[in-house]
């Protein structure tokens, strides 16, 4: 048994290729991701003391007991298994619950997983999900608000204020498509041009189709352990979780003159404060770039430039793979894909591969500390939930 307050490490990662998997269900996708993560760690079912799964539950076999169904596929039964739902942040919430459980001293080894099937034929839930408006079905979803519209409205404010140009949005899509082209597990492995992005079919003005993430299926998993259990898992350089913060929105009714409040800012500042690190200490960022505009917001909300300067910051290429703070080197949600519950654990997969130096052609040179941000949901003009993590190589 661990000690209360112990350090927590990621010792195994696994994920399916993200993409369209019409013929695969929750148990099948989870089986691959969980087995790969445990193999990566050198862990066996008896090593796992607690399991957590994040899924919004769009698939027919995810609404109830998704965790028990998934974990049984790889021989994990009998232990506490908890399912977490918090919109697109569900998977990072599952990770955070596992992290807290180990940090409390209750468990030494825990397994966190995320999964979503968004393209299966039985997805008659998809139109209803669109009705949620990202979160608040009663107020906004029934009246035409859906996720692209949220960031389209943010983009309108930034364009109106002169903080960005339309081409800056396209540069995000082009950058993340290039990063995705280097990732064999990404949904899309094609490059884009600014012209292609600008000429794509309009979705929500000013965002076109290529400003939006795809509908993706997939699963991802990570094995975590306490400092006391770390000597049992020696296959890879250990990656330490410095902190994981989680905040909820305060919503624009409480701050009526602002649209999109400071949710990401609060989560990031708390993460910097708790870790004793600053944006200057970060070597790369995996953020919740569900739309091109989302990455632009996160670029300044996570502390890498001022809001007024974010357009120039993007144009100068600082967030490219060869820039001073690469963003979304996995391809991000835009190109790697966004299977809701699997998104957070998928981001963690990338974080760990980068920190181990195992990210292949998209490796950030000398990466030792990385920042992770995963948000979810939207209501009353504000993000519903945001998790921010800081991970570091610890050898």
């Amino acid at each position, binding site marked *: 048994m661990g000690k209360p307050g112990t350090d927590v490490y990621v010792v195994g990662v696994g994920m399916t290729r993200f993409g369209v998997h019409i013929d695969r269900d929750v148990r099948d996708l989870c089986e691959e991701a969980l087995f790969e993560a445990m193999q990566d760690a050198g862990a066996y079912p008896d090593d796992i003391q607690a399991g957590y799964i994040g899924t919004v539950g769009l698939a027919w076999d995810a609404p109830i007991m998704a965790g028990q169904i998934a974990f049984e596929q790889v021989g994990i039964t009998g232990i506490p298994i908890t399912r977490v739902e918090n919109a697109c942040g569900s998977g990072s919430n599952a990770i955070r619950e596992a992290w807290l459980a180990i940090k409390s001293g209750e468990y030494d080894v825990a397994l966190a997983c995320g999964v979503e099937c968004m393209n299966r034929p039985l997805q008659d839930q998809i139109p209803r999900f669109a009705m949620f408006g990202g979160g608040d079905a009663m107020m906004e979803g029934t009246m035409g608000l859906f996720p692209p519209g949220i960031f389209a409205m943010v983009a309108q*404010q930034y364009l109106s204020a002169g903080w960005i140009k339309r081409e800056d949005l396209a540069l995000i899509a082009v950058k993340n498509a290039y990063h995705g082209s280097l990732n064999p597990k990404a949904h899309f492995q094609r490059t884009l041009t600014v012209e292609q992005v600008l000429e794509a*079919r309009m979705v929500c003005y000013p965002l076109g189709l290529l400003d939006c993430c795809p509908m993706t299926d997939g699963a991802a998993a990570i094995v975590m352990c306490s400092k006391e259990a770390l000597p049992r898992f020696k296959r890879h350089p250990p990656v330490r979780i410095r902190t994981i913060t989680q905040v909820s929105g305060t919503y624009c009714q409480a701050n009526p*003159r*602002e649209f999109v409040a400071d949710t990401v800012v609060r989560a990031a500042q708390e993460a910097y404060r708790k870790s004793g690190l600053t944006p200057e200490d970060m070597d790369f960022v995996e953020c919740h770039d569900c739309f091109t505009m989302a990455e632009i917001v996160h670029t300044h909300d996570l502390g890498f430039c001022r809001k007024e300067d974010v357009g120039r910051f993007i144009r100068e290429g600082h967030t490219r793979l060869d820039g001073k703070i690469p963003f979304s080197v996995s391809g991000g949600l835009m190109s790697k894909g966004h299977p809701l519950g699997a998104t957070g654990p998928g981001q963690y997969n990338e974080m760990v591969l980068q920190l181990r130096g195992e990210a292949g052609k998209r490796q950030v040179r000398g990466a030792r500390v990385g920042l992770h941000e995963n948000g979810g949901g939207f209501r009353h003009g504000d993000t519903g939930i945001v998790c921010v993590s800081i991970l570091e190589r610890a050898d």
Partner: protein
Amino acid sequence: MGETLKGLLVVEKFFERTPGGPVLVGSKCEVCRRVWFPKKKVCPTCFRNDTMVVHPLARYGEIVTYSISHMSHIGIPTPYAFGYVYLPDDDITIYTLFKDWQPAEAKLFIGQQLELCYDVFREDPWGNRIIGYMYRCLGTRSHIGEHGRQ
């Protein structure tokens, strides 16, 4: 959720028809004076359940931000315009669909003045037309938000 009125299903939870036109109905705390929409029984600021009164929201506001959707949303014909409206008299920002927003180049801009109205905004899967609140674009720039707006 709704009541039948002249063959239409009305989402009546959020607004009421009055002789002077439709009004959105929220709550106002008699202690802290904050307004909330939709109605609440407990004031989140004061944490009391005996201070809230039903409050008709201001009829006029201005666009905080907006977009035009070209992607079909269940039962809502495209394109449709939507956004957030700031009601200065109540110091509150709420989501809304827009009416009379075309031509978009002239009518849709941050600061555009708006007036509350109601109309059919979608049909449900059974063909029932759903009435809800909307804000009509008046075609003039508001001076309300010149102070304090980012």
